[in-house]
Every structure is written in structure tokens, then in C-alpha cells.
């Protein structure tokens, strides 16, 4: 699987989106994941796509969640089609935010 590096992300994203073969379903899934991540309170700071254009095998979004409470965790776990969730508490001396890496897998069987 090809992984898109962050520095080339903009170019790769354009390539994906400009691909005539990229179907409406893939774009719909991507849009939904982005909205969901926002809804979960994630302030996104990075994305990665995996897959050979036009196919998107995985979407990895990275973001921070400022309010650490059980509701925030619940919202993240309620997201659909996630394959992997990585959560790290951050803050010195007292953790005040979560660093979250979410991997979405559109084509789950």
C-alpha cells in the first residue's frame, strides 16, 4: 500500500480528487469522516491517505481534543468505519488535551 507523506499531501490530495475514476461513494465517505472528526471535537492538524488513486484504502486523520472528558472519548469511539484509534494524553504538569490519530477504512468487509 502506498503511503502519502505529509509534505506531498496537498499535491496527492489534488491528484486523488482530480482522478476521474474517483467515485462518488469514496468522496462521500471522505466527507463524512471529516465532518465526524470535527463533530468529535477534533481539531485536525494532519491527514494521510493510503491507496493508489483513485482508490482510497485508508484515511488517517490526526488531531487534538482540548476537553478531556468521558464524553469526548465516547464521541470518538462512536465514529463509524474506524480501523484504529490512537489516543495520547498531553499536557504538563496536568494533561489538558488528547492527541488522537484515527484511521478510517472505507471498504470494510
Amino acid at each position, binding site marked *: 500500500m502506498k503511503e502519502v507523506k505529509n509534505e506531498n499531501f496537498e499535491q496527492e490530495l489534488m491528484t486523488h480528487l482530480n482522478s476521474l475514476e474517483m467515485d*462518488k461513494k469514496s*468522496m*462521500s465517505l471522505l466527507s463524512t469522516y471529516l465532518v*465526524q472528526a470535527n463533530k468529535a471535537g477534533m481539531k485536525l492538524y494532519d491527514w494521510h491517505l493510503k491507496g493508489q488513486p483513485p482508490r482510497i484504502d485508508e484515511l488517517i486523520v490526526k488531531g487534538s481534543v482540548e476537553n478531556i472528558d468521558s464524553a469526548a472519548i465516547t464521541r470518538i469511539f462512536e465514529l463509524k468505519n474506524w480501523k484504529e484509534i490512537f489516543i495520547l494524553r498531553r499536557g504538563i504538569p496536568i494533561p489538558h488535551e488528547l492527541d488522537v490519530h484515527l484511521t478510517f477504512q472505507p471498504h470494510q468487509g
Partner: protein
Amino acid sequence: MNTNATLVHSDPAPSGHRKGYRIIQVHPTLNCNLKCSHCYSSSAPGLKTKLNIDDLHYFLSSAYDRGYNTIAVSGGEPFLYPELKELLRRSKETGYYTSLTTNGGLLPHKNNRDTLEFVDLVAVSIDGVKEEHNAIRGNLKAFDQALEAVEILKEFRKRFGFIHLLHNEPLDTLAWLCEFTLSHGAGLLQLHPFESAGRGRDASHMQLSVEQTFRFFILYHYFRQKHENDFLLQLDVLHRQTLLDQPETVYFFKDRELPAEEYLRELIIDEHGYILPGSHVFNREFALGNINERRPLAELLTVYSKEKLEDLKQLYEDAYYEMLADEDVELFNYAERIIQHSWLVKVKSQSQNSKVKIQK
């Protein structure tokens, strides 16, 4: 004016200003120095209809007393309204936050520069790179004139932003627009999808396809993140999930009785003086009245609450459920959908002899 949008939605309230925006969008004239192919209000050179400044001021004063705190002057080209400076001066004296949307072409004139004293925020319309902008505007100088206006705004240290009509155009345009906004130090970039209204009805080739809307929506999320510390990027498209989570975005408040103002957070005064909810092209059957009646907004709201508010609430509710029921659609130009629905209600109200009256 080329888009049916209000830039100040996303502009942070100035310090000390009353919390929360209630906006009055004023179209004092449809006279314009350009004749853009997508103009939803069909503005064009030579249109003579204009608002009476005293009627307008009377209404705006009464509206301020009811909590409306922002005016957004549009058009037509606002600088072709002879009383623009007076309108803005009086509005500032009243206490309003003032903004205007312009193509920039007339800003270099001295009197227009002087008007800037009474403007808090200026939105300059940009349709794309020079050739695209000029082609849409039907004027080979339009882009350079807009750039000249931007330089004047910088010189006067005015807050400004850009407003762009998203249409059938390359995705790269969005990257270019963001760089353009960044390079000029603008604080805002608003993206408003093409609407098939006014002269835009004859420009169907500019309509965004479903796939293009998705592509721009995804890119918007990327650029919003990339430029979050540079400027505010706004896209006037709603995702289905947002509609479900925040129905109040489309003025749908289930099982809640709220004052009329909550359903009328944005009022539009068209070039004939009609006071409309939501949009310049909203069905006039839903008008609150006309500014030439010289009735204070408080009185108009009282009457509206008795006669039309239930119809308006029903309209928003119907439009909301219709959007959700449209399962094939995930991204909505909600303003356009609500406007379309307002015209469907007209047919219904006429056929069923509804209490909604047509404004003469």
C-alpha cells in the same frame, strides 16, 4: 454583487459589540458598473430603482432597538448608491457594525475612498484568476480594478476579505484563492456555491456537479486546517451530518417556541424596500413589510408573529425534512434549498387560500 451570501456571518464580533450577530442585508440599488454572467440579483448598469435613505434609516434605527447589530450593504454595486456614505455614517452613529460587498471597480474614486471611514469590513468579489474573473465579469479591466481596490483597503488599514462564487471550475482554483488571500493579508475567504437565480439561470454551465461539490468540500477541510492561523475560510455548504446535529442552522427548532427574531436572524431589504427573511430572492409572500411604510420593526414583528411566522416556521421545517429525505444528497446548499421551498409554498398558499398575503 454576485453571490447571495453575507460575509459577516463568520467575522468575529468586534470588541465590545453586543454578543451575537443579527444581520440586515441591504440592497439599496441593483445598479452596477458590471453585468456578471452569474449575478443572482440580475444587477446591471442603468437600473434606476433605489431606496429612500430616510425610509432606510428609520427602519434601521428601529431594528437596532430590537437587537439587530450588523448591516451588510450589497447590491448592485453599493458605490453606485448615491447615499451610500450617508447610509453608512448614520448606521455607524446608530451603533451598527457595517460591511459592504463590492467588485472594487469604483473604490478608487475619492468620494468612495472617503466612505471607507464608516465601513468596518469590505468584501471584494473574486471569481478566479485574471482571465476567468474578467470573462465572468464581462470586463477586461475588472480583475486589475479589484486588485487596485485591495491596495486601497490596505492603505486605509481596513479589514477586508474575499468572496468567491464556487462554480464549475478547476480544483486548483481553491489553492490559488487561498494563496491569493494569504498574499494580500485578507482576513476572510468565503466560498459560496453558484445558485441558479437571476442571470445565473442562463449560466447553467457554471453549475457545480455533485462530484465537484464533494471535491471542493474535501479540499475546503484541508485548506481550512492549513490556513487556520492565516485567515478564516468559510464554505456555504452543509453536510447531512451537520444538518442532523445542528438543525438550528436552517432555523429549525423542534418543539421550541422562540421569538420571531430567532427565525429572522438575517433580514434582507431589497431594492424596492421589501423586508424579506433569508435572501434577496425569497418569496415576497413572506415579507415583513416595506420600509416605505415607516413602521418600526417591533410593530412589524408583532404583526408577523400573528400572520406569517407559523408559515415561515413550517417552511423551514418542511425544507429541513425534505433535505433529510433526499437520501442521495449529502451536501446541501441550504440557502438555495430554503429559497426554492419558499416558492413552492407560494403555490400551495395560493391554491389553499392560505392566510399569507402577497405584498403589493
